[in-house]
């Protein structure tokens, strides 16, 4: 499939917070109830549409276990977006965010968009971290924030897509150097062509809106 842009993402956060489940829900629309410890990293991909443009997301789901930390660090530099995940039912995973963030900031390119995710929002009765706390952390560190459930799929699409929107906006603003693939962004093979047709169809839509 032809795409206008390709974004590379990483998913990071403590073990068991639901990183692999989020990816699986996003790519396969499935939920995996048993914890299948990720060894190293696993790859997943999906196409999304933003602003009428096809965008390919290539996602590397990393292992949260401490012993894999040195391996997973290799993935920070080449990523355009990161989903930093904690588990709202386990405060320790929230407490570790600072460490994760420091690590990410140190090893990634400075423009990497980070989305903070409080996962397992379906387990309201076992909640240990208030939504407000997540919001406050995100505000303090300049991140986008969302609560998700990989189980019910609530906000999962949004989490991945909103991150892409942020990256897309940064591209429009000229913040990203899109010609340097090390930033985790690639322009699609038929980008120019796609662009012009997109412009046309948008114009058409406007005309349609006018006559209705």
């Amino acid at each position, binding site marked *: 499939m032809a795409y206008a842009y390709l974004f590379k993402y990483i998913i990071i956060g403590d073990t068991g917070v639901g990183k692999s489940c989020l990816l699986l829900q996003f790519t396969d629309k499935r939920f995996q109830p048993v914890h299948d410890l990720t060894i*190293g990293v696993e790859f997943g991909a999906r196409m999304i549409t933003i602003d009428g443009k096809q965008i390919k997301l290539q996602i590397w789901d990393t292992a949260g276990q401490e012993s894999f930390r*040195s391996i997973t660090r290799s993935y920070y530099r080449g990523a355009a977006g990161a989903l930093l995940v904690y588990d709202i039912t386990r405060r320790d995973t929230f407490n570790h965010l600072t460490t994760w963030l420091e690590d990410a900031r140190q090893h990634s390119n400075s423009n990497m968009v980070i989305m903070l995710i409080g996962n397992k929002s379906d387990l309201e009765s076992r909640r240990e971290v208030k939504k407000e706390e997540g919001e406050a952390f995100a505000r303090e560190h300049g991140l986008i924030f969302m609560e998700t459930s990989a189980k019910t799929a609530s906000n999962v699409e949004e989490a991945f897509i909103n991150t892409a929107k942020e990256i897309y906006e940064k591209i429009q603003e000229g913040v990203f150097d899109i010609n340097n693939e090390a930033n985790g962004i690639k322009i699609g093979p038929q980008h120019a062509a796609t662009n012009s047709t997109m412009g046309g169809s948008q114009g058409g839509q406007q005309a349609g809106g006018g006559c209705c």
Partner: protein
Amino acid sequence: MDFLRGVMGSKPAGPQPTGAETIQKLCDRVASSTLLEDRRDAVRALKSLSKKYRLEVGTMSMDHLVRILQTDRSDTEILGYALDTLYNIVCNDEEEEQDDSEEENQQKQEDDLGAQFTDKFIQEPENITLLLTLLEEFDFHVRWPGVKLLTALLKSQCAQVQGIVLVSPMGVSRLMDLLADSREVIRNDGLLLLQQLTKGNAAIQKIVAFENAFERLLDIITEEGSSDGGIVVEDCLLLLLNLLKNNSSNQNFFKEGSYIQKMKPWFEVGDDNSGWSAQKVTNLHLMLQLVRVLVSPVNSPGATASCQKAMFQCGLLQQLCTILMATGVPADILTETINTVSEVIRGSEVNQDYFASVNAPSNPPRPAIVVLLMSMVNERQPFVLRCAVLYCFQCFLYKNQKGQGEIVATLLPSTIDANSISAGQLLCGGLFSADSLSNWCAAVALAHALQDNLTQKEQLLRVQLATSLGKPPVSLLQQCTNILSQGDKLNRRGSRVQTKVGLLMLLCTWISNCPIAVMHFLHNQDNVPFLTGQISENLGEDERLVQGLCALLLGICIYYNDNSLENYTKEKLKQLIEKRIGKENFVEKLAFITKHELYSRAAQKPQPAFSTPEHMLFDHEFTKLVKELEGMITKAVLRSSEEEKKEEEVKKTLEQHDSIVTQYKELIREQDSQINELKKQVTALTSQTENLESTITQQLSQIQQHKDQYNILKLKLGKDTQQAGNQAEAAHVNGLQPEELSQLRERLEEVQRQNQLLQTQLTEKDSLITSLKAEGVPSVEDSTSEVTELRKEVEGLKAQLQSQTAEITQLQNERQELLRGSEPTVAVPAEESVYKEKIAELESRLSAQTTENQKLKGEVKTLLESKESMEKDLASATSTSAILQAEKNKLQQEVQESKKEQDDLLMLLADQDQKILNLKQRLKDLGEPIEDEDELDSRDQFEDDDEEEEEEECDE
């Protein structure tokens, strides 16, 4: 320099220093010399000695060399020498000729040496990190030997070095930069380094892929001319294989990155026959392997399916089929292409359909399947090619009921096409040819046309073969057993066992799970005795597999027996086994199949791959069948008939139980749905209740609020009426001060508003009054004049009345007189009649006047009445005006009052302002910075609560 000449040059006089001594001296110089040049010379000398005196240089100089790498970072020349030297002592693959003819295990010792020095070097993991840093140095003299050294270290201690690289920050990423080096030597050696680095390490493979390796490698391959390219292409392909083999994550990434599409042009080799160089064959071979890695049967079915789909969609499969049918393609490329096509179509309906439609460019055009099968049953074709064709045929039929039907149909009388060679004909030909390999391949191929397909198993029973002229045709099934039973008379090129095994596998597949076929098989009286004979005989080692398979076949006859043949019911067959073979013996023979050394190898993967033609014994699908049936048959045979009966009964009761259970299950399901319904209701009701509760709570809180307000108001009211000075109360009320102020402001505003309203009302009323007055005055005057008029009229009427009354009195008097005068004049009748007339006239005049008088009286009365009502009207109008006047007065008074109130409030505000100013002044005087006015204001109010309170109270 002198001593160097001593070491290397021709023999000078005097005692020769040993190699070790020289190296020691050089090491000392490397360690202690303060002159860079001196150190550099010494390292260079070590380098030149490092091959001949590998052990000595390695043992003595490694630490010194590492130190040079650490400290002399600015001099690329010395770094280069040091790296070269380290490379020489670590590296094993010494291409050079060994001096003299030394012992055979020389190479082995060399290997040990390399491993030993590598161990020593990586004992300090820092050394690897150091090396990785040096690779960032662009200078050729550093980078190149650096690459070679790291490659050598990886070669000799792969896992450990990989481990260290993996944990050094950005280690792998840095090595990826080598592929971008413009100097070919470095790029090419970088490829070799990455090959070693990625060997068997999934984590590194993934990072390398993440660093865009696929893109770069595919670009290099294209730049270098794809399959026509040189060894660089080969190295790229090897690295790609490393990255993809057994790495599902990378395979997925490769597919998602649309790289499969980029592989398609690799196979556009066409018919131009520009020659097949050895390099090209190697390259193409690797390219085919890459395709196979992506669609391997060992991958997850989903992953393979999506790659297969992509390969069809981008035309890669079509391209491969072109190679398949092209001429002049080297045999091993052709073989590998067939294997590749096999796996690209295996289990994929679309791809299988496409493959069935491919025709060979022969005259007349034949289906590719037929052409391939011709090779399979052709003894002159290479063994591997024949195996590949079999694999291709198996993959074509794998999970392909339609394809199976088409193949079987070519053998059926109704659909047979006599004019052209068909797949079925070729298979039958192979089955009964004199070549055991053809027999085996054809039998297995036919078995695959029946795999998991009951319809085709039954259809194939219809096939009749014409044997020799004059004799009646014989069924295919029977022909197979006939050949089997020919035993030693069987004349075959190759191995008799191979033929038998092939046929037995076909028969087992055919009749398993198909009672009709079992019946057909048992129907021939010779078959069972043949099987029991084979199993019970004491045969040689190589026939034991045949015995096992015969036992399996007999077992299937029992297991899938529907007892429709009286002589060969389950029970009778079991008795036969017990009598002729013995149960234990039978089971033992059966078990031999899985114990065969080739069995487990075939069970591993679907591809028929055998090291020699003799090893061609087991088919992969057949091993699955054995696994499935062995246990069941063993059980069936070992069980006694009583046990069987009991079991049957148990089965029956179980079935009964089952039906009961099913009933209960149904009931439970019903109840479950009821419960669910009820639960839903409960939820709905609960949420309703919750809603109601929350409404109540809301209302309660509203009520509370109202109460509070009420209390505050009451409090205020109380405060208003009370005398000031109650401390507690004052404090309490102070708390409300700011609130009250705003309330006051509000009230002020309200009063002003009221004021305004009243004024407008007043104006309205004023004007109303004026208008009323204007209206009212003339009306009164009007009525008065009317009254006067009426009075006058009344007066007139009265006068008239009086005059008439007087007239009447006069007339009465006259009449009296007349009456008195007439009495004496009675006698005068004429005169009397005149009088009488005159009286009558008078009397009528009188009565007329009386009625007129009456009428006038009524008129007066009505006039009086109307006058009265007018007077009333007048009175009410006057009183209205009076009321209005009073109201106006009252309103004016009110306005006056509110004005006064307003004035008071204004005064209060002015007071406060003054106070604020004072306080500000005071603060200023005290040197306190004055903040925002509002803030200060409010604070001020708080501070002055008490005073203000009092003032306010006075005001109110």
